[in-house]
Protein backbone atom coordinates (compact mmCIF):
# COMPACT_ATOMS: atom_id res chain seq x y z
CA UNK A 1 0.00 0.00 0.00
CA UNK A 2 1.18 3.48 -0.77
CA UNK A 3 1.58 5.51 2.40
CA UNK A 4 0.70 8.75 0.63
CA UNK A 5 -2.88 7.81 -0.15
CA UNK A 6 -5.56 9.59 1.83
CA UNK A 7 -7.71 7.51 4.12
CA UNK A 8 -10.88 8.41 2.22
CA UNK A 9 -9.48 6.91 -0.99
CA UNK A 10 -8.15 3.89 0.86
CA UNK A 11 -11.47 3.12 2.52
CA UNK A 12 -13.41 3.63 -0.73
CA UNK A 13 -11.05 1.17 -2.41
CA UNK A 14 -11.75 -1.33 0.35
CA UNK A 15 -15.47 -1.02 -0.27
CA UNK A 16 -16.26 0.71 3.02
CA UNK A 17 -19.50 2.62 2.41
CA UNK A 18 -19.98 6.22 3.39
CA UNK A 19 -22.52 5.21 5.98
CA UNK A 20 -20.08 2.72 7.49
CA UNK A 21 -17.41 5.40 7.52
CA UNK A 22 -19.73 7.84 9.31
CA UNK A 23 -20.59 5.17 11.85
CA UNK A 24 -16.89 4.56 12.32
CA UNK A 25 -16.38 8.30 12.85
CA UNK A 26 -19.20 8.33 15.41
CA UNK A 27 -17.45 5.55 17.32
CA UNK A 28 -14.10 7.38 17.13
CA UNK A 29 -15.70 10.62 18.33
CA UNK A 30 -17.23 8.80 21.27
CA UNK A 31 -13.99 6.95 21.98
CA UNK A 32 -12.00 10.18 22.04
CA UNK A 33 -14.65 11.78 24.26
CA UNK A 34 -15.18 14.57 21.75
CA UNK A 35 -18.51 16.39 21.60
CA UNK A 36 -20.81 14.26 19.44
CA UNK A 37 -21.56 17.25 17.20
CA UNK A 38 -17.96 16.95 15.95
CA UNK A 39 -18.64 13.75 13.97
CA UNK A 40 -18.65 15.51 10.63
CA UNK A 41 -15.47 17.43 11.42
CA UNK A 42 -13.79 14.15 12.41
CA UNK A 43 -15.03 12.55 9.19
CA UNK A 44 -13.68 15.42 7.10
CA UNK A 45 -10.30 15.27 8.85
CA UNK A 46 -9.98 11.49 8.63
CA UNK A 47 -10.90 11.50 4.96
CA UNK A 48 -8.01 13.77 4.12
CA UNK A 49 -5.53 12.22 6.58
CA UNK A 50 -2.45 10.47 5.23
CA UNK A 51 -1.47 7.09 6.60
CA UNK A 52 1.40 7.67 8.98
CA UNK A 53 4.34 5.33 9.04
CA UNK A 54 4.61 3.48 12.34
CA UNK A 55 7.65 1.68 13.69
CA UNK A 56 6.86 -0.63 16.61
CA UNK A 57 9.74 -1.68 18.85
CA UNK A 58 9.36 -4.49 21.38
CA UNK A 59 11.86 -4.54 24.24
CA UNK A 60 11.67 -6.22 27.67
CA UNK A 61 8.04 -7.28 27.38
CA UNK A 62 5.75 -10.30 27.24
CA UNK A 63 3.97 -9.44 23.96
CA UNK A 64 0.77 -9.09 25.99
CA UNK A 65 0.30 -5.55 24.67
CA UNK A 66 0.46 -6.73 21.07
CA UNK A 67 -1.86 -9.62 21.96
CA UNK A 68 -4.30 -7.16 23.51
CA UNK A 69 -4.40 -5.23 20.27
CA UNK A 70 -4.45 -8.07 17.76
CA UNK A 71 -6.69 -10.47 19.68
CA UNK A 72 -9.56 -8.04 19.56
CA UNK A 73 -12.08 -9.86 17.40
CA UNK A 74 -11.79 -8.86 13.80
CA UNK A 75 -13.01 -7.08 11.89
CA UNK A 76 -13.56 -4.42 14.52
CA UNK A 77 -13.26 -0.70 14.47
CA UNK A 78 -9.94 -1.13 16.26
CA UNK A 79 -8.48 -3.18 13.45
CA UNK A 80 -9.86 -0.68 10.99
CA UNK A 81 -7.85 2.03 12.69
CA UNK A 82 -4.90 -0.28 12.65
CA UNK A 83 -5.38 -0.57 8.89
CA UNK A 84 -5.14 3.18 8.68
CA UNK A 85 -1.52 3.24 9.67
CA UNK A 86 1.38 1.90 7.73
CA UNK A 87 2.96 -0.51 10.20
CA UNK A 88 6.43 -0.74 8.73
CA UNK A 89 8.17 -2.65 11.51
CA UNK A 90 6.82 -4.89 14.24
CA UNK A 91 8.89 -7.95 14.86
CA UNK A 92 5.98 -10.08 16.11
CA UNK A 93 3.61 -9.22 13.29
CA UNK A 94 5.83 -8.72 10.27
CA UNK A 95 6.49 -11.45 7.75
CA UNK A 96 10.12 -10.52 7.17
CA UNK A 97 12.77 -11.71 9.58
CA UNK A 98 16.48 -11.32 10.24
CA UNK A 99 18.40 -8.85 8.13
CA UNK A 100 15.36 -8.07 5.97
CA UNK A 101 13.32 -7.05 8.98
CA UNK A 102 16.01 -4.70 10.24
CA UNK A 103 16.39 -3.31 6.73
CA UNK A 104 12.68 -2.50 6.52
CA UNK A 105 12.97 -0.53 9.74
CA UNK A 106 15.94 1.44 8.41
CA UNK A 107 14.16 2.12 5.14
CA UNK A 108 11.00 3.30 6.82
CA UNK A 109 13.05 5.57 9.06
CA UNK A 110 14.82 7.08 6.09
CA UNK A 111 11.66 7.45 3.98
CA UNK A 112 9.68 9.37 6.56
CA UNK A 113 12.40 10.84 8.75
CA UNK A 114 10.91 13.29 11.24
CA UNK A 115 7.37 12.14 10.50
CA UNK A 116 6.96 8.55 11.67
CA UNK A 117 5.40 7.45 14.92
CA UNK A 118 7.55 5.29 17.14
CA UNK A 119 5.57 2.82 19.26
CA UNK A 120 7.45 1.04 22.05
CA UNK A 121 6.29 -1.78 24.27
CA UNK A 122 8.57 -3.11 26.99
CA UNK A 123 11.14 -1.47 29.22
CA UNK A 124 14.79 -0.79 28.40
CA UNK A 125 17.51 -2.55 30.45
CA UNK A 126 20.50 -0.33 31.23
CA UNK A 127 22.66 -2.46 33.58
CA UNK A 128 25.92 -3.85 32.20
CA UNK A 129 25.63 -1.84 29.01
CA UNK A 130 22.07 -3.01 28.34
CA UNK A 131 23.08 -6.56 27.35
CA UNK A 132 20.02 -8.18 28.93
CA UNK A 133 17.83 -7.58 25.90
CA UNK A 134 19.13 -7.41 22.36
CA UNK A 135 17.64 -7.56 18.88
CA UNK A 136 19.84 -8.55 15.93
CA UNK A 137 22.85 -8.29 18.22
CA UNK A 138 22.11 -4.69 19.25
CA UNK A 139 20.93 -3.57 22.63
CA UNK A 140 17.44 -2.14 23.12
CA UNK A 141 19.04 1.09 24.29
CA UNK A 142 20.99 1.41 21.05
CA UNK A 143 17.98 0.69 18.81
CA UNK A 144 15.72 3.02 20.79
CA UNK A 145 18.15 5.91 20.62
CA UNK A 146 18.63 5.42 16.90
CA UNK A 147 14.94 5.01 16.10
CA UNK A 148 13.86 7.94 18.25
CA UNK A 149 15.98 10.43 16.29
CA UNK A 150 13.61 10.70 13.34
CA UNK A 151 10.37 10.11 15.23
CA UNK A 152 7.66 12.76 15.28
CA UNK A 153 6.49 11.35 18.59
CA UNK A 154 6.80 8.24 20.72
CA UNK A 155 3.93 6.16 22.06
CA UNK A 156 4.89 4.05 25.08
CA UNK A 157 2.42 1.19 25.00
CA UNK A 158 1.93 -0.75 28.23
CA UNK A 159 3.11 -0.24 31.78
CA UNK A 160 6.65 -1.51 31.04
CA UNK A 161 7.39 1.09 28.37
CA UNK A 162 5.48 3.77 30.29
CA UNK A 163 6.80 3.26 33.83
CA UNK A 164 9.17 0.27 33.78
CA UNK A 165 6.53 -2.28 34.74
CA UNK A 166 7.41 -5.80 35.84
CA UNK A 167 11.05 -5.75 34.66
CA UNK A 168 11.61 -2.70 36.88
CA UNK A 169 9.98 -4.33 39.93
CA UNK A 170 12.30 -4.87 42.90
CA UNK A 171 15.09 -5.91 42.73
CA UNK A 172 15.17 -4.85 39.07
CA UNK A 173 18.02 -7.20 38.04
CA UNK A 174 18.41 -5.79 34.52
CA UNK A 175 18.33 -2.13 35.52
CA UNK A 176 15.12 -1.62 33.54
CA UNK A 177 13.85 1.92 32.91
CA UNK A 178 10.87 3.33 31.02
CA UNK A 179 11.30 4.94 27.61
CA UNK A 180 10.98 8.42 29.11
CA UNK A 181 14.24 7.93 31.04
CA UNK A 182 16.17 7.25 27.84
CA UNK A 183 14.57 9.70 25.41
CA UNK A 184 14.02 13.20 26.73
CA UNK A 185 13.81 15.37 23.62
CA UNK A 186 10.67 13.91 21.99
CA UNK A 187 7.00 14.12 22.89
CA UNK A 188 6.06 10.84 24.60
CA UNK A 189 2.54 9.53 25.09
CA UNK A 190 2.19 6.82 27.71
CA UNK A 191 -0.59 4.25 27.34
CA UNK A 192 -0.08 2.25 30.56
CA UNK A 193 -1.91 -0.92 31.46
CA UNK A 194 -0.91 -4.54 31.76
CA UNK A 195 -2.06 -4.81 29.04
CA UNK A 196 -3.63 -1.50 28.00
CA UNK A 197 -7.19 -1.51 26.71
CA UNK A 198 -7.01 -2.03 22.92
CA UNK A 199 -9.41 0.83 22.33
CA UNK A 200 -7.06 3.14 24.21
CA UNK A 201 -4.08 2.18 22.04
CA UNK A 202 -6.11 2.72 18.91
CA UNK A 203 -7.71 5.84 20.38
CA UNK A 204 -4.30 7.49 20.61
CA UNK A 205 -3.53 6.50 17.03
CA UNK A 206 -6.97 7.73 15.92
CA UNK A 207 -6.41 11.04 17.64
CA UNK A 208 -3.07 11.45 15.93
CA UNK A 209 -4.64 10.57 12.58
CA UNK A 210 -7.60 12.89 13.03
CA UNK A 211 -5.84 15.94 14.37
CA UNK A 212 -2.25 15.35 13.30
CA UNK A 213 -1.11 15.93 16.86
CA UNK A 214 -0.99 14.15 20.17
CA UNK A 215 -3.96 14.26 22.55
CA UNK A 216 -3.92 16.29 25.77
CA UNK A 217 -1.68 14.54 28.30
CA UNK A 218 -1.46 14.52 32.07
CA UNK A 219 1.66 14.75 34.27
CA UNK A 220 2.64 11.16 33.48
CA UNK A 221 2.11 11.56 29.74
CA UNK A 222 -1.24 9.73 29.73
CA UNK A 223 -4.04 10.92 27.43
CA UNK A 224 -6.49 12.75 29.68
CA UNK A 225 -9.52 11.48 27.75
CA UNK A 226 -8.71 7.90 28.82
CA UNK A 227 -6.89 8.38 32.11
CA UNK A 228 -8.68 11.45 33.44
CA UNK A 229 -10.79 9.57 35.96
CA UNK A 230 -10.11 6.77 38.40
CA UNK A 231 -11.69 3.33 38.16
CA UNK A 232 -13.39 4.19 41.47
CA UNK A 233 -14.92 7.38 39.97
CA UNK A 234 -16.81 5.40 37.34
CA UNK A 235 -17.24 2.07 39.11
CA UNK A 236 -20.76 0.66 39.08
CA UNK A 237 -20.14 -0.56 42.67
CA UNK A 238 -19.41 2.97 43.86
CA UNK A 239 -22.80 3.42 45.59
CA UNK A 240 -21.83 0.56 47.94
CA UNK A 241 -18.54 2.25 48.81
CA UNK A 242 -20.37 5.47 49.61
CA UNK A 243 -22.65 3.56 51.96
CA UNK A 244 -19.86 1.56 53.57
CA UNK A 245 -21.09 -1.79 52.25
CA UNK A 246 -18.06 -3.98 51.64
CA UNK A 247 -17.50 -7.60 50.67
CA UNK A 248 -15.29 -9.13 53.37
CA UNK A 249 -14.30 -12.27 51.46
CA UNK A 250 -14.60 -13.33 47.85
CA UNK A 251 -17.52 -15.64 48.54
CA UNK A 252 -19.58 -14.02 51.27
CA UNK A 253 -23.08 -12.65 50.95
CA UNK A 254 -21.71 -9.17 50.21
CA UNK A 255 -19.51 -10.43 47.38
CA UNK A 256 -22.50 -12.22 45.89
CA UNK A 257 -24.63 -9.11 46.12
CA UNK A 258 -21.94 -7.16 44.25
CA UNK A 259 -20.79 -4.94 47.12
CA UNK A 260 -17.64 -2.82 47.02
CA UNK A 261 -14.31 -4.73 46.91
CA UNK A 262 -12.28 -2.07 48.77
CA UNK A 263 -11.59 -4.31 51.75
CA UNK A 264 -10.39 -7.09 49.44
CA UNK A 265 -7.61 -4.86 48.15
CA UNK A 266 -9.24 -3.10 45.18
CA UNK A 267 -6.90 -0.36 43.91
CA UNK A 268 -9.67 1.36 41.95
CA UNK A 269 -9.53 4.58 44.00
CA UNK A 270 -5.87 5.22 43.11
CA UNK A 271 -5.91 3.89 39.55
CA UNK A 272 -6.54 6.07 36.55
CA UNK A 273 -7.82 4.15 33.54
CA UNK A 274 -11.02 3.71 31.57
CA UNK A 275 -11.73 0.01 32.22
CA UNK A 276 -14.98 0.88 33.97
CA UNK A 277 -16.33 2.71 30.92
CA UNK A 278 -14.56 1.25 27.87
CA UNK A 279 -14.46 -2.28 29.32
CA UNK A 280 -12.76 -5.42 28.02
CA UNK A 281 -13.36 -8.33 25.68
CA UNK A 282 -15.61 -6.50 23.31
CA UNK A 283 -17.41 -4.62 26.06
CA UNK A 284 -18.34 -7.67 28.16
CA UNK A 285 -16.99 -6.30 31.40
CA UNK A 286 -13.95 -5.43 33.46
CA UNK A 287 -12.25 -7.13 36.44
CA UNK A 288 -14.50 -5.62 39.11
CA UNK A 289 -17.55 -6.82 37.21
CA UNK A 290 -16.08 -10.33 37.39
CA UNK A 291 -15.83 -9.99 41.17
CA UNK A 292 -12.13 -9.18 41.59
CA UNK A 293 -10.67 -5.87 42.73
CA UNK A 294 -8.58 -3.63 40.48
CA UNK A 295 -4.83 -4.42 40.61
CA UNK A 296 -3.86 -0.90 39.59
CA UNK A 297 -1.87 -2.33 36.66
CA UNK A 298 -1.73 0.98 34.84
CA UNK A 299 -0.09 2.83 37.74
CA UNK A 300 3.68 3.30 38.18
CA UNK A 301 5.34 0.60 40.33
CA UNK A 302 2.06 -1.24 40.86
CA UNK A 303 3.99 -4.47 41.34
CA UNK A 304 5.84 -3.07 44.36
CA UNK A 305 2.84 -1.39 45.97
CA UNK A 306 2.14 -4.22 48.40
CA UNK A 307 -0.11 -7.23 47.96
CA UNK A 308 -2.95 -7.07 45.47
CA UNK A 309 -5.17 -8.08 48.39
CA UNK A 310 -3.97 -5.47 50.90
CA UNK A 311 -6.67 -2.81 51.26
CA UNK A 312 -5.57 0.73 50.43
CA UNK A 313 -6.17 1.74 54.05
CA UNK A 314 -3.89 -0.96 55.46
CA UNK A 315 -0.13 -0.77 55.89
CA UNK A 316 1.94 -2.23 53.05
CA UNK A 317 4.92 -2.91 55.30
CA UNK A 318 5.58 -4.76 58.55
CA UNK A 319 4.68 -2.27 61.25
CA UNK A 320 4.16 -4.79 64.05
CA UNK A 321 7.84 -5.70 64.39
CA UNK A 322 8.82 -2.06 64.23
CA UNK A 323 6.31 -1.25 66.98
CA UNK A 324 7.56 -4.11 69.18
CA UNK A 325 11.18 -3.07 68.76
CA UNK A 326 10.28 0.55 69.49
CA UNK A 327 8.38 -0.48 72.63
CA UNK A 328 11.37 -2.48 73.85
CA UNK A 329 13.75 0.41 73.20
CA UNK A 330 11.38 2.88 74.89
CA UNK A 331 11.00 0.68 77.96
CA UNK A 332 14.73 0.04 78.12
CA UNK A 333 15.49 3.74 77.93
CA UNK A 334 12.97 4.49 80.68
CA UNK A 335 14.44 1.81 82.97
CA UNK A 336 17.97 2.99 82.27
CA UNK A 337 16.98 6.54 83.02
CA UNK A 338 15.25 5.62 86.25
CA UNK A 339 18.23 3.52 87.37
CA UNK A 340 20.58 6.39 86.60
CA UNK A 341 18.21 8.77 88.40
CA UNK A 342 18.05 6.55 91.43
CA UNK A 343 21.83 6.21 91.47
CA UNK A 344 22.19 9.96 91.32
CA UNK A 345 19.73 10.41 94.19
CA UNK A 346 21.48 7.79 96.25
CA UNK A 347 24.77 9.46 95.58
CA UNK A 348 23.29 12.81 96.55
CA UNK A 349 21.79 11.36 99.73
CA UNK A 350 25.07 9.72 100.56
CA UNK A 351 26.94 12.97 100.00
CA UNK A 352 24.40 14.67 102.21
CA UNK A 353 24.75 12.12 105.02
CA UNK A 354 28.49 12.34 105.03
CA UNK A 355 28.29 15.38 107.25
CA UNK A 356 29.68 14.40 110.58
CA UNK A 357 30.26 15.94 113.96
CA UNK A 358 33.73 16.84 112.83
CA UNK A 359 32.31 19.04 110.13
CA UNK A 360 30.29 20.92 112.70
Amino acid at each position, binding site marked *: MIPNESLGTLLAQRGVSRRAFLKFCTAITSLLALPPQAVHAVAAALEKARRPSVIWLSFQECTGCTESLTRSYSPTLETLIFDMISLDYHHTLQAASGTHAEKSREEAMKASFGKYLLVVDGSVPLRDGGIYSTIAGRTNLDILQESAKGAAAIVSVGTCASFGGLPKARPNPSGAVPVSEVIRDKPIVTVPGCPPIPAVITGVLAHYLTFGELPALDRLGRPVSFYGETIHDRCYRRPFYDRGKFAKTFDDEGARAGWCLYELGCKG*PTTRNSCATTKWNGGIGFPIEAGHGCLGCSEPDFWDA*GSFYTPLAA*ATVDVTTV*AEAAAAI*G*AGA*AVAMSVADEAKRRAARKAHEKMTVKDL
Partner: protein
Amino acid sequence: MIPESFFFWVRGTGFQIAVALFVGGMVFRMAALALMARRKSLAEPRGSEWGPGLRMIWRRSFVLPQLGFRGKLTFVSGYLFHLGLLLVVLFLSQHILLLRSVLGFGWPSLPRGVIDVAAVLAMAALVVLLVHRVTDPVKRLLSDFQDYLSWTVTCLPLLTGFLLSRNAGFDYRTLLTVHLLTVELLLVVMPFTKLAHMFSTFGARWYNGAIAGLKGVLP
Protein backbone atom coordinates in the same frame (compact mmCIF):
# COMPACT_ATOMS: atom_id res chain seq x y z
CA MET B 1 -1.10 15.64 42.14
CA ILE B 2 1.38 13.91 44.37
CA PRO B 3 4.00 11.60 42.85
CA GLU B 4 3.28 7.90 43.30
CA SER B 5 6.58 7.14 45.03
CA PHE B 6 5.77 9.59 47.79
CA PHE B 7 2.42 7.86 48.26
CA PHE B 8 4.26 4.53 48.63
CA TRP B 9 6.67 6.11 51.13
CA VAL B 10 3.85 7.49 53.23
CA ARG B 11 2.14 4.08 53.30
CA GLY B 12 5.44 2.28 53.96
CA THR B 13 8.60 3.73 55.47
CA GLY B 14 6.95 6.93 56.65
CA PHE B 15 4.33 4.95 58.53
CA GLN B 16 7.01 2.72 60.10
CA ILE B 17 8.96 5.76 61.32
CA ALA B 18 5.84 7.36 62.76
CA VAL B 19 4.74 4.20 64.56
CA ALA B 20 8.26 3.61 65.91
CA LEU B 21 8.42 7.14 67.34
CA PHE B 22 4.89 6.91 68.71
CA VAL B 23 5.26 3.52 70.40
CA GLY B 24 8.84 4.05 71.53
CA GLY B 25 8.14 7.57 72.77
CA MET B 26 4.92 6.63 74.53
CA VAL B 27 6.38 3.57 76.26
CA PHE B 28 9.38 5.62 77.32
CA ARG B 29 7.28 8.42 78.77
CA MET B 30 4.77 6.20 80.51
CA ALA B 31 7.46 3.92 81.92
CA ALA B 32 9.50 6.92 83.00
CA LEU B 33 6.43 8.29 84.83
CA ALA B 34 5.78 4.98 86.52
CA LEU B 35 9.40 4.44 87.51
CA MET B 36 9.95 8.04 88.52
CA ALA B 37 12.04 8.02 91.68
CA ARG B 38 9.76 9.04 94.53
CA ARG B 39 10.84 9.42 98.10
CA LYS B 40 9.48 6.75 100.35
CA SER B 41 6.70 8.05 102.54
CA LEU B 42 7.56 7.37 106.15
CA ALA B 43 4.24 8.60 107.47
CA GLU B 44 1.76 6.02 108.65
CA PRO B 45 -1.03 5.68 106.02
CA ARG B 46 -4.37 6.98 107.23
CA GLY B 47 -6.32 5.23 104.56
CA SER B 48 -6.01 2.94 101.57
CA GLU B 49 -4.78 4.13 98.19
CA TRP B 50 -6.71 1.87 95.78
CA GLY B 51 -10.25 2.88 96.61
CA PRO B 52 -9.68 6.63 96.56
CA GLY B 53 -7.50 6.26 93.46
CA LEU B 54 -10.24 4.56 91.49
CA ARG B 55 -12.84 6.90 92.91
CA MET B 56 -10.80 9.86 91.68
CA ILE B 57 -10.71 8.49 88.16
CA TRP B 58 -14.49 8.38 88.29
CA ARG B 59 -15.05 11.68 90.12
CA ARG B 60 -12.88 13.72 87.76
CA SER B 61 -15.11 12.64 84.90
CA PHE B 62 -18.07 14.60 86.30
CA VAL B 63 -17.36 18.14 87.35
CA LEU B 64 -20.37 19.70 85.64
CA PRO B 65 -22.51 21.05 88.50
CA GLN B 66 -19.77 23.24 89.88
CA LEU B 67 -19.11 25.01 86.59
CA GLY B 68 -20.35 28.23 85.03
CA PHE B 69 -21.59 28.53 81.46
CA ARG B 70 -18.18 28.65 79.84
CA GLY B 71 -16.97 25.83 81.99
CA LYS B 72 -19.95 23.75 81.01
CA LEU B 73 -19.26 24.57 77.37
CA THR B 74 -15.69 23.36 77.74
CA PHE B 75 -16.88 20.25 79.53
CA VAL B 76 -19.52 19.31 76.95
CA SER B 77 -17.31 20.14 73.96
CA GLY B 78 -14.46 18.21 75.51
CA TYR B 79 -16.62 15.15 75.93
CA LEU B 80 -18.10 15.43 72.45
CA PHE B 81 -14.68 15.77 70.91
CA HIS B 82 -13.16 12.82 72.73
CA LEU B 83 -16.15 10.58 72.12
CA GLY B 84 -16.31 11.54 68.44
CA LEU B 85 -12.61 11.02 67.97
CA LEU B 86 -12.74 7.62 69.67
CA LEU B 87 -15.62 6.46 67.47
CA VAL B 88 -13.96 7.68 64.29
CA VAL B 89 -10.52 6.30 65.09
CA LEU B 90 -11.63 2.90 66.32
CA PHE B 91 -14.83 2.15 64.46
CA LEU B 92 -14.47 3.40 60.87
CA SER B 93 -14.15 0.29 58.70
CA GLN B 94 -11.02 1.61 56.92
CA HIS B 95 -9.33 2.24 60.28
CA ILE B 96 -10.15 -1.27 61.45
CA LEU B 97 -8.51 -2.58 58.26
CA LEU B 98 -5.35 -0.68 59.17
CA LEU B 99 -5.42 -1.76 62.81
CA ARG B 100 -6.03 -5.34 61.77
CA SER B 101 -2.97 -5.23 59.51
CA VAL B 102 -0.88 -4.00 62.46
CA LEU B 103 -2.45 -5.81 65.44
CA GLY B 104 -3.49 -9.01 63.70
CA PHE B 105 -7.10 -8.79 64.84
CA GLY B 106 -10.10 -6.61 64.16
CA TRP B 107 -13.63 -5.91 65.31
CA PRO B 108 -16.95 -4.92 63.73
CA SER B 109 -17.25 -1.41 62.35
CA LEU B 110 -19.96 1.19 62.83
CA PRO B 111 -22.10 2.35 59.89
CA ARG B 112 -20.75 5.23 57.83
CA GLY B 113 -23.56 7.56 58.88
CA VAL B 114 -22.67 7.23 62.56
CA ILE B 115 -18.99 7.85 61.85
CA ASP B 116 -19.83 10.92 59.76
CA VAL B 117 -21.89 12.42 62.57
CA ALA B 118 -19.16 11.62 65.10
CA ALA B 119 -16.50 13.27 62.92
CA VAL B 120 -18.55 16.42 62.37
CA LEU B 121 -19.33 16.69 66.10
CA ALA B 122 -15.68 16.18 67.01
CA MET B 123 -14.54 18.88 64.60
CA ALA B 124 -17.27 21.29 65.70
CA ALA B 125 -16.28 20.71 69.34
CA LEU B 126 -12.64 21.42 68.48
CA VAL B 127 -13.63 24.71 66.88
CA VAL B 128 -15.73 25.69 69.90
CA LEU B 129 -12.84 24.86 72.21
CA LEU B 130 -10.41 26.90 70.13
CA VAL B 131 -12.72 29.90 70.03
CA HIS B 132 -13.15 29.63 73.78
CA ARG B 133 -9.41 29.38 74.28
CA VAL B 134 -8.78 32.51 72.24
CA THR B 135 -11.63 34.63 73.60
CA ASP B 136 -11.39 33.79 77.29
CA PRO B 137 -8.71 36.11 78.75
CA VAL B 138 -7.58 33.64 81.41
CA LYS B 139 -7.35 30.72 79.02
CA ARG B 140 -5.57 32.87 76.46
CA LEU B 141 -3.00 33.84 79.04
CA LEU B 142 -2.50 30.23 80.05
CA SER B 143 -2.14 28.97 76.48
CA ASP B 144 1.25 28.54 74.95
CA PHE B 145 2.56 27.34 71.60
CA GLN B 146 2.13 23.68 72.53
CA ASP B 147 -1.61 24.10 73.07
CA TYR B 148 -2.13 25.48 69.58
CA LEU B 149 0.20 22.86 68.11
CA SER B 150 -1.75 20.08 69.79
CA TRP B 151 -5.02 21.51 68.53
CA THR B 152 -3.71 21.75 64.95
CA VAL B 153 -2.18 18.28 64.72
CA THR B 154 -5.34 16.74 66.22
CA CYS B 155 -7.72 18.62 63.97
CA LEU B 156 -5.83 17.99 60.70
CA PRO B 157 -6.33 14.19 60.51
CA LEU B 158 -10.02 14.62 61.27
CA LEU B 159 -10.42 17.24 58.57
CA THR B 160 -8.37 15.44 55.90
CA GLY B 161 -10.05 12.14 56.75
CA PHE B 162 -13.46 13.72 56.39
CA LEU B 163 -12.50 15.16 52.98
CA LEU B 164 -11.11 11.77 51.97
CA SER B 165 -14.31 9.97 52.85
CA ARG B 166 -16.23 12.48 50.73
CA ASN B 167 -13.66 12.43 47.90
CA ALA B 168 -13.78 16.21 48.13
CA GLY B 169 -11.51 18.62 46.30
CA PHE B 170 -8.71 16.34 45.16
CA ASP B 171 -8.32 12.81 43.86
CA TYR B 172 -8.33 9.87 46.24
CA ARG B 173 -4.57 9.30 46.12
CA THR B 174 -3.73 12.90 47.02
CA LEU B 175 -6.30 12.99 49.82
CA LEU B 176 -5.14 9.65 51.21
CA THR B 177 -1.51 10.76 51.09
CA VAL B 178 -2.28 14.00 52.91
CA HIS B 179 -4.49 12.20 55.45
CA LEU B 180 -1.79 9.62 56.21
CA LEU B 181 0.82 12.38 56.50
CA THR B 182 -1.27 14.29 59.05
CA VAL B 183 -1.87 11.08 61.01
CA GLU B 184 1.86 10.37 61.00
CA LEU B 185 2.54 13.92 62.17
CA LEU B 186 0.08 13.40 65.02
CA LEU B 187 1.70 10.08 65.95
CA VAL B 188 5.14 11.68 66.08
CA VAL B 189 3.99 14.70 68.08
CA MET B 190 1.79 12.85 70.58
CA PRO B 191 4.32 11.24 72.93
CA PHE B 192 6.33 14.42 73.34
CA THR B 193 3.55 16.92 74.05
CA LYS B 194 0.61 17.10 76.41
CA LEU B 195 -1.24 14.87 73.96
CA ALA B 196 0.48 12.05 75.85
CA HIS B 197 -2.45 12.43 78.25
CA MET B 198 -4.21 9.83 76.10
CA PHE B 199 -2.35 7.26 78.20
CA SER B 200 -1.32 9.16 81.33
CA THR B 201 -4.60 10.81 82.25
CA PHE B 202 -6.18 7.95 84.21
CA GLY B 203 -2.89 7.03 85.85
CA ALA B 204 -2.43 10.63 86.95
CA ARG B 205 -5.94 10.77 88.37
CA TRP B 206 -5.37 7.54 90.21
CA TYR B 207 -2.13 8.91 91.65
CA ASN B 208 -3.83 12.06 92.91
CA GLY B 209 -6.59 10.02 94.49
CA ALA B 210 -4.19 7.51 95.96
CA ILE B 211 -2.01 10.19 97.60
CA ALA B 212 -5.07 11.83 99.09
CA GLY B 213 -6.27 8.41 100.20
CA LEU B 214 -3.03 7.68 101.99
CA LYS B 215 -3.31 11.00 103.78
CA GLY B 216 -6.88 10.20 104.64
CA VAL B 217 -8.29 13.43 103.22
CA LEU B 218 -10.68 11.95 100.72
CA PRO B 219 -14.15 10.64 101.48
